[in-house]
Every structure is written in C-alpha cells, then in structure tokens.
C-alpha cells in the first residue's frame, strides 16, 4: 500500500480482514494523510452517518488498522515501483528497502497546483503559499503564514482557509476567482465567506504581485471570456500574503515510471476493478481522481482493496485481455470519466461510473451512448456543477449493452422542457 492516508488505510483494512498480509508505506511522520489537517467538520456523513472533523474521521480508520495489526512504515519514501511489482523505498532506519508484492495499491493522493502551474509572472517575494500548505502550517505545525491575505481561487480549501484565518485573528481582504462562478461548494461560500463578510470577486484574476522581498499587495483585473485582462479594470489590494487555491492534480510520478498509462485527468487509466494497465497494480483515492468527499475516497479504496484480494486469490499473474475492453469517453460537458474502460466479460457486475461536468448547468440530462449514438441509459438531474463529482452505479447486464459495443460516451446535455411543435 503506497500511502497511509484515508484511501491507503481503508484499503489496507479490507485486505487485512480478508486474511492477507499488507504493508503501508507512508512518507509522513504519522498515518492519516491530508485529512488530518482538515480540522473542519463535514466528514463522515456517508461513511459513519454522522458529521465528523477530518482528524476524527481518519482516527477511526487508524484505530481500526491498529486493532487489526496492519503493518506500516513511517517516514518512508517510495522511490520506484516496477511492473514486476517490486517496490523500492528508503527511510532512516532500514536504509534502502526492496519489497516484492503480489499486488500493489497506489494511494498517494494529490498535490496542489502552484503559482508555476497557472503561469503567474513577476518577482518571487516571500508570502506566497498554496492553500493546503497554509492549512498545514496553521492547523498542524502552529505557524501563521501572514496577517493580511488575498486568496486566489474559490476552491473549497481556499474558502475554508479564509474562515480559519479569520478565526485566528487575520484579515482576509478578498477571494478572487477567474471564473464567473464559485468553484467550491455553496455551503462553504455561505458559511466561510458570507458569514464573515469576506468579499468574493468573480471574473477577476491577479495580474501583478507587488513586493520584492515580501508580498506587499496584488493587482487584480477583470477578465473577459477568454480570461484576458480587460484594460482599465485594475485594482490594488494591500496584503502581506497570497494564498493559491487553484486546483489539485493526482500525484502520479511513481505510476508513470512504473509504465502504467495515465489518462487526461492526471490519474492512471483504470478498468472497472480500479486496476491500472499493469496487472496487479490498483489505484484509489485522489491519486486516481480528485474527490470532493473523503467518504467517497474510502468507498473507492475499499473496492480497490477487495479487488486486490480477488486478484491475489483467483487471478494472480493473469493479465486482462485487452481486446475485450469497452472504452469510456467523456462527451459534451463532461471533463473525464472513470473507469477509463471496462471488460465485456464483467458486464453482469455493477459498475460505478464517476465523472465531472466541465461547467455548471441546470435541468440537464445525463446520457450514456454507444459508438453508433444509440442511447443506452439516461437520467434527468436538476443541476450539475464542476465541483461536484457525479457517481452513477449501473448494472450493465440490465442495460442490455449490444454485442458490438466498443465504447460508451457519457454526455451532459440540456433537457428540453417544452417541445416546439413545428407542425
């Protein structure tokens, strides 16, 4: 198990319960992962039917793993994973480790997009942090990165940090969002920003960072539909710290170096068993796709764990036949679809499709169709927003997938309310 966060712990628990031996490799000083620094509440509603904080949520998994005697190594950095399922890792007590596994589960999580990934020009003064980094400083390490803030990006971590910093006595001057809409959950917009009168400025972005040694302020400018700066709309905001909450990307260097295919969303290509293109290597949690809720992460991780058990017990070293696959394609207003493909022979099993919309929309229709545009499944929905992952569980046997089906395209299209009769 590579990674001892919520995904790694949940998958390790189901494997241990199945009677197999499992070892968690964790690079941090303790188990728990990023959920430990998310000290706000709102976790566990699906998994435990009660509202918990991040630490409470993951502590339950840590406790269960310890009770079961799951083995783990902390401060241990995995440096390489091979197709033959050999894991190379290093730490201060063992030195270099070479571990041969029958199956590997990738649960490394994701990382934040930085200033570099959004091409923000200018000097590099102190005082620019990603939101999650600031969250760790404030909630775990006990440091305040600054006193007055501007937050770029209205992702959930950014909005939650706006409230957190206000509670710690700091001033959050504004949350600036390039899109015309908020990218995080409405709940956070209301309870983290509006409750504290923190201005949310949409359709604006930061065009200049002031200060040579320390941030002194930022210039924000309104953008047009192509995100180009509109001349004459520049405004200066004084601040000593800039937080970036501009998205997350699955962390897949190990996956890529092992030779597994990576899909456009940044996560590995997986089938309906969450198995990557290397047989016996599975992926779950934010390393596969960025989730909104840790509850969904652990549900996915449990599936990956069970599938790994099934692999070791019944299918060990028998790769999936590639010719037998149906591809999943992201169609209109769909960002990506997981799984990337599934096996025809598995049609009788329930398959969970997860995907995100590219842009918000209301009164829509979600459609699954084959390569000949034949609609196999449709469902109405009141709304879609990019910040909310959509999960649909389907039994493909009931759908009666045609024999010659090669691909399944998922699309989100407007649902006509009134039919215009031309006759």
């Amino acid at each position: 198990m590579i990674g001892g966060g919520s995904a790694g712990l949940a998958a390790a628990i189901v494997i241990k319960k199945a009677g197999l031996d499992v070892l968690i490799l964790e690079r941090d000083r303790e188990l728990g992962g990023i959920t430990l620094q998310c000290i706000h509440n709102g976790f566990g509603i699906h998994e435990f039917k009660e509202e918990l904080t991040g630490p409470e949520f993951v502590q339950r998994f840590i406790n269960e793993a310890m009770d079961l005697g799951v083995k783990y190594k902390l401060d241990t950095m995995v440096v390489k994973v091979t197709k033959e399922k050999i894991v190379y890792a290093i730490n201060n007590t063992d030195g270099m480790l070479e571990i041969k596994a029958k199956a590997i589960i990738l649960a490394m999580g994701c990382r934040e997009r930085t200033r570099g990934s959004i091409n923000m020009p200018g000097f590099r003064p102190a005082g620019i942090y990603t939101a999650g980094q600031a969250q760790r400083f404030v909630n775990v390490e006990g440091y305040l990165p600054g006193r007055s803030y501007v937050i770029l990006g209205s992702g959930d971590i950014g909005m939650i940090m706006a409230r957190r910093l206000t509670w710690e006595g700091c001033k959050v001057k504004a949350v600036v969002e390039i899109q015309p809409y908020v990218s995080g959950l409405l709940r956070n917009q209301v309870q983290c920003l509006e409750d504290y009168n923190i201005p949310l400025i949409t359709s604006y972005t930061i065009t200049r960072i002031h200060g040579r040694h320390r941030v002194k302020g930022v210039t924000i400018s309104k953008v047009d539909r192509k995100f180009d700066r509109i001349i004459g709309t520049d405004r200066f905001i004084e601040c000593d710290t800039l937080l970036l909450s501009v998205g997350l990307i699955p962390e897949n260097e190990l996956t890529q170096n092992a030779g597994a295919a990576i899909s456009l969303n940044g996560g590995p290509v997986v089938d309906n068993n969450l198995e990557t293109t290397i047989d016996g290597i599975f992926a779950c949690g934010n390393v596969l796709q960025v989730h909104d809720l840790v509850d969904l992460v652990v549900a996915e991780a449990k599936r990956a764990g069970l599938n790994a058990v099934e692999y070791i017990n019944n299918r060990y070293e028998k790769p999936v036949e590639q010719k037998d696959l149906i591809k999943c394609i992201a169609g209109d207003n769909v960002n990506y679809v997981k799984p990337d493909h599934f096996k025809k022979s598995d049609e009788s099993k329930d398959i969970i499709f997860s995907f995100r919309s590219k842009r918000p929309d209301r009164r829509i229709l979600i459609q699954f169709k084959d390569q000949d545009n034949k609609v196999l499944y449709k469902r109405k929905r009141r709304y879609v927003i990019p910040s909310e992952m959509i999960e649909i569980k389907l039994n493909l046997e009931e759908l009666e997938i045609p024999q010659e089906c090669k691909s399944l395209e998922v699309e989100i299209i407007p649902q006509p309310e009134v039919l215009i009769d031309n006759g």
Partner: protein
Amino acid sequence: MNIESENKMAKSIPEGEKTIRCIVCPTGCEIHVKNIDGELIVEGHTCKRGEVYARDEFIAPKRILTTTIRVKGGLLPLIPVRTDKPILKERLNEVLNEIAIKEIEAPIKMGDVLIKNVLDLDADIIASRDLIKAS
C-alpha cells in the same frame, strides 16, 4: 430540545425580515423569512429541509466551532478540537478567545473533554484526534 428552552427561543425571535441562501443542497434557493407579529413566514424554499434550515438561521444561527489548542510536550504543537454541539454563531469569537489562552498537556485521546461547558454555552470543547507525547 425540551419545551421550556423552545419557549425561551420562541420569545426571542428576531424582528424584521431576512433573505437566507439555503445551503442544504447545491441548488441554493434564496429563502425569504419574515417575522409578522411573532409568526414566521417562510417563502422561496423548494423542500422541507430548506424551510427548517431557514427558520433556524433566522431565529438563532448556530455553528460547530473547529479550531486548535496549544499542546505541551506533544508530538505536535497543536491539537485540533471542536465543540461537541453547535453553538450560537454570535458567540464564536468569545469562545475562540477563550480557547486561544489555553494549553493542554499530551497525551490526549480523541473525544477527551478539554474545556467543559465553555462559557456556559452548554457545549464542551473536545479533542478531534489522539496525540502522543513527544519522544
């Protein structure tokens, strides 16, 4: 909630009217709440849960407070904590100031009551995780 405290609340329904953005689901209905001679008129909601939420928000908005307390001799310098039940939003700041001056000694177990009945708000401050002593 017992009838007595419910009565107390009923007496303290704020005057006037307010537009509340519902957070129960992402639809985000704008709900209008109006106090007409002690009777609440709720409009604009599209579900029952939204109506309940808007009523509560109008009468006395409450929040769970999640923050950290300094720790002496722990693996980490802070322990994440929360109130064990929602407390009045308008009192959050006082509670934060009360928590800011506290220091707790490690080891700590999840669920430990770190501050009992904080500021007489009928809520305890409890630990959100285990924290061992520094080795």
